[in-house]
């Protein structure tokens, strides 16, 4: 695998005969071990398992015994794509993940703008760290925290129940799922937008101002287009985990709001239809891959991680 080694010889002593250590291991051991061992682990426990999800998605269940048959059968995919139940789940998953993503964009953009354009750069480090800190706490715990807030007679009712018209009994509803998603994944939306706002050339904004452009037009014609890579990155990075989510709808959503992740989990946990679950997983993975293709095509990756 490792065919050549670079940076072995010191630049300054190029003329001197390379001093190979007389003792020690042959030259190929270090590269093969350093790259080879982690690659082997990932092939064994990521790549091959994923390949076998694909293989299993073509297996079938024996009608009589309920046991899996190792044949080649496209019926699982036919069922996923043609059955009403799975089409509805797929569509609902798109709707919920899409709505959460748009909501997160609306919440995150002004925040990211304030962080990247209005705050003293020397303070940005700490404030960005504060955006990341919630990410350090368990997904389960952060989702759980909303149960106490949204449940009947919960925190929201106690603290804001006097506000007329404010719905306070939200647990096990679509709204609860959306709130949960926005809360849990918001940093994924804020950080790439923040990065593109920070890289914004402020002289362009001043030029627009000097030329008499009103602020809203400057925003639409200068700021927004220039931060679009960050926005696209945020949309994709946020959408993907929502789309694949299984915990949030399980804990916060109603029984009618189950998403694709829940249906896949059911095929493995309760229905014991592994081939169908595998086919659903392949469909989900393909959708995620399309999302990532958009990400790498339109988002400026170096800028996002720069």
């Amino acid at each position: 695998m490792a065919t050549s080694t670079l940076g072995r010889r010191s630049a300054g002593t190029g003329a001197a005969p390379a001093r190979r250590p007389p003792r020690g291991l042959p030259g190929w051991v270090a590269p093969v071990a350093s790259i080879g061992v982690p690659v082997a682990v990932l092939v064994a426990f990521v790549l091959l398992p994923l390949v076998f999800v694909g293989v299993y998605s073509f297996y079938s269940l024996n009608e009589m015994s309920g046991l899996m048959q190792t044949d080649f059968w496209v019926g699982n995919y036919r069922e996923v794509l043609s059955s009403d139940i799975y089409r509805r789940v797929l569509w609902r998953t798109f709707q919920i993940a899409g709505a959460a993503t748009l909501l997160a964009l609306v919440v995150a953009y002004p925040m990211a703008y304030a962080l990247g354009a209005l705050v003293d750069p020397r303070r940005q480090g700490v404030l960005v760290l504060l955006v990341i800190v919630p990410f350090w706490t368990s997904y389960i715990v952060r989702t759980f925290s909303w149960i106490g807030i949204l449940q009947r007679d919960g925190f929201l009712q106690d603290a804001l129940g006097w506000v007329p018209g404010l719905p306070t009994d939200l647990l096990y509803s679509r709204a609860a799922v959306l709130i949960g998603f926005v809360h849990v994944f918001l940093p994924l939306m804020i950080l790439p937008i923040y990065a593109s706002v920070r890289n914004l050339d402020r002289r362009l904004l001043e030029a627009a101002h000097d030329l008499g452009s009103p602020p809203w037009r400057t925003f639409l014609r200068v700021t927004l287009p220039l931060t679009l890579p960050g926005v696209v990155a945020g949309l994709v990075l946020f959408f993907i985990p929502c789309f694949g989510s299984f915990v949030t709808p399980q804990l916060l959503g109603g029984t009618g709001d189950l998403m694709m992740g829940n249906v896949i989990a059911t095929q493995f946990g309760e229905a014991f239809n592994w081939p169908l679950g595998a086919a659903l997983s392949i469909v989900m993975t393909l959708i995620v891959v399309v999302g990532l293709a958009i990400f790498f095509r339109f988002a400026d990756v170096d800028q996002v991680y720069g």
Partner: protein
Amino acid sequence: MARAAMRAGGGTAARGGQGRGPDRGALGRRLLLVYAALVYGFLFLPILLVMVTSVNPDGRATFPPPGVTDRWYRDLVSDDQMLEAFRTSLTVGAIVALVATVLGLLAAWGLSRYTFRFKRGVRALFYLPMLVPGVVGGISLVIWFNRIGLASGFWTIVIAHVVHALPYTLTLILTSFYGFDRRLEEASRDLGAGEWSTFRRVTLPLVMPGVIGGALLAFTLSFDEFVLTFFVAGGGVQTLPLVIFSRIRFELSPVINAAAAVVIAVSVLVLLSGQLAGWARARRQA
């Protein structure tokens, strides 16, 4: 913590408003900063609320809390299932931190040093676990462990967590590999040090911040991991997030708040200590 965030936000609001550009937008800017403070509140308040509720005598998130109690923590300490799961989570986390850091160190060393065919593919493979949806990753491992005849339990959890943490530890360690002066290693070799002693006495100390950060991150990623664990754990072994999840679904008792507060405290303290150590080192070198 939320209050600290808001205070920080408020402080910058005052500063940001001064002498920057035309004053016409000052109000808009101030509103934006207030809004940013509210978003910090949105991010932190629910987490804070769990901690407050864990000492609330009502046992749920009532407002205002009628007092303070340690009752739920006493319940937690006498809850054998929770304690067992806590121990399991700590043990798994420690093993995962060790293994993921060693693998990440190997990979970072190789990636920063050699060029070879398929390097882009290898790099993509290293980041693949980050991109696979949790549910898909989970069932792929269930299928695979079933296929190769590995019974689910402690070690399947460890394997799943190592794979989950590796991209993150690799990223951190790789950053520190690209961040130091390669000529130091050349100098060491020119002075007669072998490959191994150069690594041990020059390279490793230089990348140590990334290694320690990677290990701490791997520990917390493992400690908090739920989805993969849910699939690969089987019936016998349970980590703390698994127990919390099943309690939420089936009984929603106040002891969950205490357990959740412990989970928050462990990961935040571990990662904050890493961050502070990093800052302290940077200051010492500056």
